[in-house]
């Protein structure tokens, strides 16, 4: 059972209160009409699925119902950081580590 700190409630809460919501920081093509099928398909479907630190979204379903970002290690499930929408993690690892 994970303990996840919600950046809005500012408290560590039980994993039961949260739902996973997929990879974070995926930019939507600025002009969908002008993007190719390949670009749009990549935006919709392709994900990094890394082994190690992964930036992902969670939603505090049973709490404040806000989406936020989590930096989680997919190997040992350690949560390295949680941060509000529109922010970047304070202790962001080197790009090569991701």
């Amino acid at each position, binding site marked *: 059972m994970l303990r996840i700190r919600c950046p*809005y409630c500012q408290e560590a809460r*039980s994993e039961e209160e949260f739902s996973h919501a997929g990879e974070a920081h995926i930019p939507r093509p600025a002009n969908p009409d002008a993007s190719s099928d390949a670009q749009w398909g990549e935006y919709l479907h392709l994900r990094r699925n890394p082994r190690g630190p992964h930036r992902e979204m969670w939603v505090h379903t049973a709490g404040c119902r806000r989406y936020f970002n989590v930096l989680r290690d997919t190997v040992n499930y350690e949560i390295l950081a949680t941060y509000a929408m529109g922010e970047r993690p304070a202790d962001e690892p080197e790009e090569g580590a991701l």
Partner: protein
Amino acid sequence: MSDGVGVACRESRVGAFLNLRGDAADPGFRNVAASVTGVELPVEPCTWRRHAGHAAAYWLGPDEWLLAMQNGVGVDLESRLRDVLDPRCSVVDVSGAHVQVELSGEDAGKVLQKSSPYDFDPRNFGVGRCVQTVFAKATALVAAREADAFDIVFRRSYADYLLRWLEDAAAEYNASDGRSP
């Protein structure tokens, strides 16, 4: 409000609820809301403030509050808020969706502790705090009114299930359900 030993559970006289959304960083919004409702909106996460009488304002999120008051007051307050709030704010009467019960007594905290993964220990959950969390197999908003008296707000569709849950959870503490002497 404590009944001393054991746990008492009864439906609250609070039955009108408004969901209010707006920018907590905007002092204009907070001032207008406070002047109409008579209470400062709590901006500290997971806290609540009491109105006059039984009513209260609960923090639900960084831009969302639940205003709770006695039956009959909500409709008037909703229209008065609509008259003065910026159109980008939202005020919705959610009275039909919610039920509030009062759980009180020496062992009321223990009933909370076995109903939820949240840490309801009094050192963590003192008077003035409120949390939305998992409660039994449903969800609820729990607020600490006094050291041994709590207000629980849950969805009406879960009311039957959660009242039965509370009755069962409180049984070992000689619970009275408020209907029997």
